[in-house]
């Protein structure tokens, strides 16, 4: 007698990370699970956006060191995952980012000052989520993975042609909410793509102390969903994998987990001291996998990129940096009265009383 259980339908990701363009700028011969390399035109667009994002991160980090922002977690080094995944989104799709993903918000079209409002300390979320189809950046780790799942469930119930994408980190993969989101998304077959940026560290804790699994993408199998591991510094691989996963989701075939192998080149935030937990050689080692260098080399080989385009993109990056400086050098307008304005849809008498206390304090201090 045997117990009647399914014995098919489970598959593990291939061990070799999916990659089209190797660190040397040449096409790899890695198996790509049926994915196809994006067109040169798409890759050129991704190149341009990665250059902009890198300049953006460098500029914001610099301004943070000067004290213009309260804190800043840079995604320098992770441009391929940030840009490749976000560019694959359709306008109707929704993005569920973390504190690490300002680059994704920039790619989604959110204005610089609105992205940075949170880090400058103006307001917790500076942009209108409905306008950009992007949720506020979540700081409580992994919580946003459930929001992305629920949002996609509602889209599915309403018959909307929309998918959701959420970023999470290797550290966040240990949180219970990650497990719950993978499970809910797979049970409900929601159009959700989980982009796990494995940048090797959660603040100071290295991956080997985060998990004993061979790879984080393996977890997908345990939830009955496909998992892929991609070279997270190959924007061609990230874009192709995420675009295919979004299409699967919109097609009613459920969620996908995509682990992007990458590396955080900067410190966790400006207030972190990475010399305490990683050595300079390791950082040097990862420089040879740089996502922008390799794409530039590749596109020069195919002829899609030449000196003049590279110069034009560099100039656009400088323009962006200047606009970041301008935005952050303007004093943010904050209105203390706004503390009370948005807490409830239904006004509360007790809160109005507290507002009067503050108004009186402001008047006494000579505030307008």
């Amino acid at each position, binding site marked *: 007698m045997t117990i009647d259980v399914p014995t098919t339908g489970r598959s593990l990701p291939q061990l070799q990370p999916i990659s089209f363009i190797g660190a040397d700028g040449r096409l790899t011969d890695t198996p790509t699970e049926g994915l196809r390399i994006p067109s040169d035109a798409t890759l050129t667009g991704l190149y341009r956006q990665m250059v902009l994002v890198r300049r953006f991160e460098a500029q914001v980090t610099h301004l943070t060191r000067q004290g213009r922002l309260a804190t800043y977690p840079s995604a320098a080094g992770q441009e391929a995952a940030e840009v490749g995944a976000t560019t694959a989104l359709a306008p109707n799709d929704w993005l569920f980012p973390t504190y690490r993903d300002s680059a994704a918000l920039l790619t989604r079209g959110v204005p610089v000052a609105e992205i940075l409002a949170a880090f400058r300390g103006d307001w917790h*979320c500076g942009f209108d989520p409905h306008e950009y189809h992007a949720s506020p950046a979540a700081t409580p780790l992994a919580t946003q993975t459930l929001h992305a*799942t629920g949002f996609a469930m*509602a889209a599915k*119930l309403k018959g909307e042609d929309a998918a959701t994408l959420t970023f999470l980190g290797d550290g966040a993969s240990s949180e219970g*909410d990650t497990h719950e989101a993978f499970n*809910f998304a797979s049970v409900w077959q929601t159009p959700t793509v989980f982009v796990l940026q494995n940048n090797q560290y959660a603040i100071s804790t290295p991956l080997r102390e985060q998990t004993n699994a061979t790879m984080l993408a393996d977890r997908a199998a345990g939830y009955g969903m496909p998992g892929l591991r991609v070279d997270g510094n190959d924007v061609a691989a990230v874009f192709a994998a995420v675009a295919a996963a979004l299409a699967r989701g919109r097609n009613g075939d459920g969620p996908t987990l995509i682990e992007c192998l990458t590396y955080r080149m900067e410190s966790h935030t400006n207030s972190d001291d990475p010399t305490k937990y990683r050595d300079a050689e390791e950082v040097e080692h990862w420089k040879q996998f740089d996502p922008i260098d390799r794409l530039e080399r590749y596109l020069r080989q195919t002829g899609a990129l030449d000196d003049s385009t590279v110069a034009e993109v560099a100039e656009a990056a400088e323009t962006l940096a200047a606009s970041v400086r301008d935005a952050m050098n303007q004093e943010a307008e904050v209105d203390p009265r706004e503390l009370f304005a*948005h807490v*409830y849809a*239904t006004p*509360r008498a007790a809160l109005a009383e507290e507002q009067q206390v503050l108004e009186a304090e402001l008047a006494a201090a000579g505030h307008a």
Partner: protein
Amino acid sequence: MSVETGTDPVTDSTEVNDETATAASAKGDTAPGTARAPDAGPAPSSVTMTKALNHALRDSLADDDTVLVFGEDVGRLGGVFRVTEGLRAEFGSNRVWDSPLAESGIIGTAIGMAMNGMRPVVEMQFDAYAYPAFEQIVSHVAKMRNRTKGRVSLPITIRIPYAGDIGGVEHHSDSSEAYWTSTPGLTVITPSNPADAYSLLRESIASDDPVVFMEPKSRYWMKETLSLPVSTAPMNRAQVIREGTDATLLAYGPTVRTALDSAEAGAEHGLSIEVIDLRTLSPFDDETVSESVRKTSRAAIIHEAAQFGGYGAEVAARLTERNFPYLSAPILRVAGFDVPYPSPKLEEFYLPTVERVLDALESWDWEL
């Protein structure tokens, strides 16, 4: 069986509540006459609180396509207390369904659904089993509207069966209200009778603010003769349910019965006691309560939760701050002891009783 057919409250409680099958102490007494039936409603009948809640969910689901009901065992079984009985059959599994067993997942996905235009009504199976969702409730449900300057509101209703006096084993009798009332952004409601249960749940679901809707388990099988739908006093307002001149007893949910019984017993000693059913714990109805306290000059608040740092501490403090010149005696708390909720054989010694309320009243210097 269904709660509608039960006539013996003790039988109801043992059969309806799977998990606390030893329950034998649920009280089936009737409510004070607070209900106001609409002119042309159906003929009045005897209605339990579970039936009233069920009716409210059914009417909300029927009136508004965006209302969704999900949680642990709320579909096929109709919830362990049968509050959602029959709803899946009537509205289909796209509107009412059993979720995977994970409370953070339930709240987290409800957030995403609400962001995408839905009105989720979710059930936490028991008070203590809402704790895994604490982070999602406190960090996101409560804060999303403020964080996004009112651009994203979360019309979520979180139903939590709470409090004791049902012979429940460990973790089935907590009174967790103070966690929620001390969190800005949440509206906290608790009905004490079937008519309010119906009316307040309808209003909670229709509210654009997130509501923690706390259902007193020991009152689930309480019956009241009324015709549904019914509309009682609006949410966010307390209600004087017995008039008196010598002292005010404040109560909510399970302790309203205790307060009324105490007032009755007090009358035998020649005391005229006013009883207020708070109904909404946050916001607190300062106006109604202060008016009563100024009239009677004495007040006590009764709750099952432990006394230290409990809801009663806030009530006593704010009533004292606002009404000190009118008070003849300190505002007292008649609460659970500062110990973990006890096992079934000991709960009668823990719970605030009529005797304990009367002792508190006696402790006042009535010469003043």
